[in-house]
């Protein structure tokens, strides 16, 4: 068996190594790649390890935006200043796998794998994230909604590396909810992220595991956005009807399937429940001190 691993200590080294051949593949945490290897779907050939390339690690502020390195681990998303800035991403990260998996798995890996059940994707979708890419032709950007093209299909071309994901730093509540067939270490049945932009006067929703790609629900967003009192950042919904209607509209934006984890009918219902719950939480009165 032939195979090689290049440990790239910089982005340039990674790009160079990728030029070695079309079968070269990047590996960061390996939490998706090793599943493919174990399932016999891919035989390790030329691997380019990028977990030691400093350009891809960590995160930083860039004006109104946050630049999340593609090598950012779930464990790093879970806590600290970043968890305060993008709380829905922290909530999503906390639901991923086990602590060992969260120490290894990365944001870039989640984006590039482009699984319908990728746990960060509903949040990134709601945030209108933009993917930064470096390649043989230089750098380019691709909005996430264009980058993810289908089930495990992306816009990434030969020789390219996702270097970062840019999301806006928003003022407003964020929620992430996930239903699975057990309480942890689970591939989701459905996921819903709700992000409030108090300055832009929008409520944005991203849904996962309910369509081939993460989806937004523009009708639902417009409906609830028009009913929010943006000055007070409150949603007047004493009977819960608004939240319920929002949930229904979000569910209508999905196209779930039956599989061994659940049924399409259940997924639609769970999306509606989670979306309603998320929007209620996002606009609930702050706890009295």
């Amino acid at each position, binding site marked *: *068996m032939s195979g090689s691993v290049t440990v790239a200590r910089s982005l340039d080294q990674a790009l160079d190594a990728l030029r070695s051949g079309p079968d070269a593949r990047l590996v960061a945490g390996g939490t998706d790649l090793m*599943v493919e290897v*174990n*399932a016999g779907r891919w035989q390790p050939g030329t691997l380019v390890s990028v977990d030691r390339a400093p350009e891809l690690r960590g995160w930083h502020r860039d004006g109104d935006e946050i630049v999340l390195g593609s090598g950012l681990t779930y464990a790093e998303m879970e806590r600290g200043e970043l968890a305060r800035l993008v709380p829905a991403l922290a909530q999503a990260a906390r639901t991923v796998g086990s602590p060992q998996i969260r120490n290894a798995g990365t944001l870039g890996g989640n984006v590039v794998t482009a699984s319908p059940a990728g746990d960060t994707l509903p949040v990134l979708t709601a945030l209108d994230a933009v993917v930064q890419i470096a390649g043989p032709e230089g750098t380019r950007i691709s909005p996430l909604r264009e980058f993810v093209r289908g089930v495990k299909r992306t816009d990434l071309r030969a020789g390219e590396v996702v270097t970062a994901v840019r999301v806006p730093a928003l003022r407003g509540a964020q929620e992430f909810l996930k*239903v699975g067939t*057990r309480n*942890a270490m689970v591939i989701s049945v459905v996921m819903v992220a709700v992000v409030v932009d108090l300055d832009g006067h929008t409520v944005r929703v991203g849904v996962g595991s309910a369509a081939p790609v993460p989806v937004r629900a523009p009708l639902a967003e417009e409906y609830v956005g028009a009913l929010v009192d943006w000055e007070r950042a409150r949603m007047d919904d004493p009977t819960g009807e608004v939240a319920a209607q929002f949930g229904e509209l979000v569910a209508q934006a999905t196209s779930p399937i039956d599989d*061994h984890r*659940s049924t399409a009918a259940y997924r639609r219902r769970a999306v509606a429940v989670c979306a309603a719950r998320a929007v209620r939480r996002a606009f609930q009165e702050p706890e009295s001190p």
Partner: protein
Amino acid sequence: MNDVVRPVMQDAVAAAPTRVDGRDKVTGRARYAVEHPVEDVVWAWPVTSTVAKGRVTEIDASEANGTEGVIAVLTHANAPRLGETDDAELQLLQSDRVAYRGQVCALVVGETVESARAGADAVRVRYDEAEHDVVLDARHPAMFTPEKVNPGFPTDTSIGDPDTAFAVAAVQLDATYTTPTEHNHAMEPHATTASWGADGTLTLYDSNQGSTGVARVMADLFGLQVRAVHVISEHVGGGFGSKGTPRPNIVLAAMAAQAVGRPVRLALGRQHMFSLVGYRTPTIQRLRLGATTDGVLRSLVHDVWEQTSTLDDFAEQTAVISRMLYAAPARRTTHRLVRLDVPTPSWMRAPGEAPGSFALESAMDELAAACDLDPVELRVRNEPDVDPESGKPFSSRNLVACLREGARRFGWEQRDPTPGVRRDGRWLVGTGVASSTYPARTAPSQARMSIGSDGVVTVELNAVDIGTGSRTALTQIAAEAMDLPTDRVRLRIGDSTLPPAMIAGGSMGLTSWGSAIVKGARQLRELVGRRDGAIPEDGLEVTADTAEEVRAVSGYARHAFGAQFCEVRVDADTGEVRVPRLLGVFAVGRVINARTARSQLVGGMTMGLSMALHEEGVVDVQHGDNVNHDLAGYHIAAHADVADVDAMWLEEHDEHLNLVGAKGIGEIGIVGTAAAVANAVHHATGVRVRDLPIRVDRLLGRG
């Protein structure tokens, strides 16, 4: 009947000795089957069939043979011929027939595990594929009546006229329950290191639940004398029944070692285990309970339909629990089996009682509701005086005491029986109960005991510690029987050259091994006594055999009992089920080590919780495969699913069991748990789930 004294409390657990091999295990010094250093060792990896039925027409190994590091590719065309045994699953690479998807059709030997796997990926197999049949259906035209059910119970039993008794009963319950295919995967996969000596002897480091039988089967397969086969199983990382008999790994490793003339290691991959190491059959169970308005059973009928393979008949004894748990003057149990194009099912923790209790104990809960009776009280009213089918007295039977003590500790008395009315925010809250039981059996075993002039006692028998703590408990039994501190006892187990002993299975390991040790200790002390305590330079030695004691059946029905109480919270909108509280109270005879015993009971209950909420082998009808043949898809409970699981036991003295006075605890913990959970879900939501697992979509879909 024996008086029940106080329940054993936490301080007993705290006072119990810790595991004698604990330090070796946590520091990695303990060696498992493929960790023993062996010179010049190579690795093997199986190629498994990708069709569910047919014949192999061609195996193209040219690319595999050209793969770097590959030493050999074995197929039915070139593999060594094997002798006959009664396990058809072990006739590996002996024919071109494919009996199920995932069956071994080639074996690649490589210098490393990676090269063997790469070679296996490169083997091309062509088939003449036949139409397969993999779906269990009670109306399947090929259903038949097996000769017996595991391990030797009558297939059907009948007393009185249960049909008429049911027809005239004031309260009738007729319900059908199903359980899916379930898999028992230990943390350590099935694994073997095999090497042949120049003198034709075969040495096997193997992960199994008892190597006495493994050595015998391997001798038969390879045409050897049993003494030419040496199986070493010093440490084993779990079994749950799936390592109770030899599995393909040991046969393949020995074949490969023979073929290449070098020692071979083979550890099955997790995905292989979904087809190669047994599993629990799916079951369809119809329960008919006829009772008086005050809940006294007049008729109890339990009919079971389940599957086996086309290779071998394995019939799980699913309805056997209904033969002894409750009184009823008219009763019947039946088992029907169908041979499908699937792997052969086998032992999984509490075969029979685990799935059977789900149906029986759910039905009892339904009957309690129909009679407007508390489910604990219903069970008490149907307590038999003697074993209902055999008429034998119970050696001890403390089911009612377990129910009462559990109810008291759980706070059952305040329970409002109305389903679907307790709400805490978005959560619907409910509680449920179920009985547990498991046979208390002992099997013949031998133990060699010797004492040296230094006063140290050496105990040797082919017991095995599969992670349960038996090494620790046996050391305690020996020390107590010899009236010595435990540090004066040396225990040797896990080696087929030691005196033959029972497997770690059927909850019979500790009782069988312990009895041999107690008998040996008596003989040894007598010998020492006859010499007035003077031990000669080369020591004294005895070998005890309990065959006679075990044969001398004393006419009692022997069973362990328990009661499990469960609280669930069900999300009213999503149907997600959480289990904040699970309590088991058991009566299991004498407990040797409270620490490891509690661990076994809590482990069984956790597995039962997993069975209730998660475990489901999904059949791929089109391809005859398991859809979820890995642990990412086949879910067992995660830590976050297991909150407060507690187990305790009543002090129980039973003279009629064995020389240890214990009933065995490996399996009873899983019996009844799933029903307790389902009954609690019904209490919480009003939805009766009769098909496991209790999936969110099933729960909401029928609400």
